[in-house]
C-alpha cells in the first residue's frame, strides 16, 4: 500500500495527513491536513484567512464561495486535498494591492448591498466570477447570478443593483485601462513596459486584450 506522500495518496488510515499546496490570492501556501478537512476550514483555520465565511456547511447558503482556478465553488463542499495544487481567490484577494476596492466591492458600498456583512464575501466572489463570464448582465441575469446565495438582511434588491453597478464600474475600469495603454503607446512606450504599466486590470484582461495592447 502506497504512502500518502505519493501522487495517488492511497491511505486507509483516516489519521494520515496530506500536504496540501495552494496559491491563495497569489501567495503560495501549504497545510498538512487530514483528508476530511474542508477547503473552507483550511482557509479559515490553517491559513487564518477568515474573510471566507461559513454559514450552513452543506452548500445551501453560498457564504463560503471562493474561486478555485478562477471558477466560483462552495469551499464547504470541496475537500482541501481535492483542491491541492489549485489557485484560490478568497474575498481578501479581491481588493487591489494598494487597498482600492474592486468594482464589485465598490458597487456593494455604493448601493448599500450589505447590512450585517456575513453573507457578503460569498456574494462578492460569486459576482466577481460571474462578471468575467458575462460582463453586461441584464437584471434577470443578475438575479440568476446571485440565486445560490442567501442574505437575511437586505432583501436582495440592493444586491441586484450592486451587480449591475459593478458591471458598469468594471467596464469603466477596462475602458480607462485601454485608454491609458493607448496614450502610452502613442508616447512610444514599448510593449514590455506597457504590460508592466498595466495597472490592476491585468487579471481580468483576456489574452486578446493584451495582444491588442502590444
Amino acid at each position, binding site marked *: 500500500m502506497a504512502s500518502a506522500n505519493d*501522487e*495517488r*495518496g*492511497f*491511505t*486507509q*488510515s*483516516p*489519521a*494520515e495527513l*496530506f500536504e496540501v499546496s495552494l496559491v491563495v490570492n497569489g501567495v503560495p501556501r501549504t497545510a498538512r491536513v*487530514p*483528508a*476530511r478537512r*474542508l477547503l473552507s*476550514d483550511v482557509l479559515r483555520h490553517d491559513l487564518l484567512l477568515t474573510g471566507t465565511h461559513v454559514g*450552513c*456547511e*452543506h*452548500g445551501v447558503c*453560498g457564504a463560503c*464561495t471562493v474561486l478555485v482556478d478562477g*471558477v*466560483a*465553488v*462552495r469551499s*464547504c*463542499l*470541496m*475537500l482541501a*486535498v*481535492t483542491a491541492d495544487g489549485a489557485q484560490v481567490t478568497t474575498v481578501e484577494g479581491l481588493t487591489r494591492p494598494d487597498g482600492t476596492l474592486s468594482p464589485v466591492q465598490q458597487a456593494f458600498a455604493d448601493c448599500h448591498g450589505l447590512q450585517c456583512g456575513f453573507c457578503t464575501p460569498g456574494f462578492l466572489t*460569486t459576482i466577481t466570477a*460571474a462578471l468575467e463570464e458575462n460582463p453586461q448582465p441584464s437584471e434577470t441575469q443578475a438575479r*440568476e*447570478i446571485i*440565486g*445560490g446565495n442567501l442574505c437575511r438582511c437586505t432583501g436582495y434588491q440592493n444586491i441586484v443593483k450592486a451587480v449591475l453597478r459593478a458591471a458598469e464600474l468594471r467596464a469603466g475600469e477596462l475602458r480607462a485601462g485601454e485608454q491609458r495603454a493607448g496614450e502610452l503607446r502613442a508616447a512610444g512606450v514599448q510593449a514590455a513596459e506597457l504590460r508592466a504599466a498595466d495597472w490592476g486590470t491585468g487579471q481580468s484582461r483576456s489574452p486578446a486584450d493584451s495582444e491588442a495592447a502590444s
Partner: protein
Amino acid sequence: MKPPQFGYSRPLSVAEALADLAAAAPDGKVLAGGQSLLPLLNMRLAAPAHLVDINRIAELGYATVDDGEVVIGALARHAQVLADQAVCRAQPLIGQALALVAHPVIRNRGTTVGSIVHADPAGEMTAVLALLGGSVLLEGTGGKRLVKAKEFFHGPLESDVGPDELATQVRVPVLAARAGCAFAEVSRRHGDYAVCGVAALVELDDGGGIRRARAAYLSVAGTPLVLDLTEAGADVAAAARLAMAQVAPTADIHATAAYRRHLAGVLTERALAGALAHARERSGG
C-alpha cells in the same frame, strides 16, 4: 457539520480508481463533484470508510456527440455540458434540464454522471436519462457493463452501481428528427429541489400528428417515473388528466401528496405543450 473520518486516494487513471474501489469494497465511495456527497458527509448521513477521489482523472472530463448518442464522461461538470453547444443542439433536453439543476456555482463543480449515479428522485438528470432511454457504463476490475436506464434506478439514492464499480460514462440518444422536448418544474425558490418536475418528449408522424408522447416525472416516486401519454394525442389537458391518474406521490414537509399530483397535471400540460411546439418548429411548422 464536518465530514466523518475516511481513508482517501486520488487515482490518476480509471484502472487505478478501479483498483482502489476494489481494495476498499464494500465501504468505498466515489468522490467526483461532491455537491451531493459532501453535504451527506457534512450532515453525517453517510460515512464511507474510503473515498476514491476521481478529480485527477482528466480523461473522464468529456462530453461529445458520437454516432447518434450524446456521451458524457464521469468528470464532465454540469456547467461544462450546459455550455457545450454541440451536445445541447444534438439533445436539447440536456440543456433544458441542466439549466434547472441547482445554481450556477453548484453546476461549476457538480458532475452530470455523478448526479445520475446519486439517483435522487428529485434530480433533473435522472429523469432525462429515464425519458430518453439512455444507459450508464459501469466499469469494475471484473469488466464493463452497460446498464439501461430502466434497470439502473433501484430506489431513492439507490442505483445499480456495485461497491467496486465506477460509472465512467452516460449515453443518451440524440433528439430524433420530427421530435421535440421540454422541461418544466416548480420549486419553492429558483434552483431549489423541484417539488415536482416534468420532462416531455414528443415525436410527430409525417402528417404532423402525434406518433409518440412520453413524460418523465421528478419527485413523485422513488425512481424517475416515465409515462406514455400518446393516447391523449395533441390534447395536453387530456394528457394531464392521464398523468394525474397514474402518479402516486407521497407527502413530505415540502408538499402534500394532493399538491404534488396537482403539479404533475399542470406541469404535464406545460411540458407537453412546449415539446409539441418544439417538435413542430423542428419539422418546419
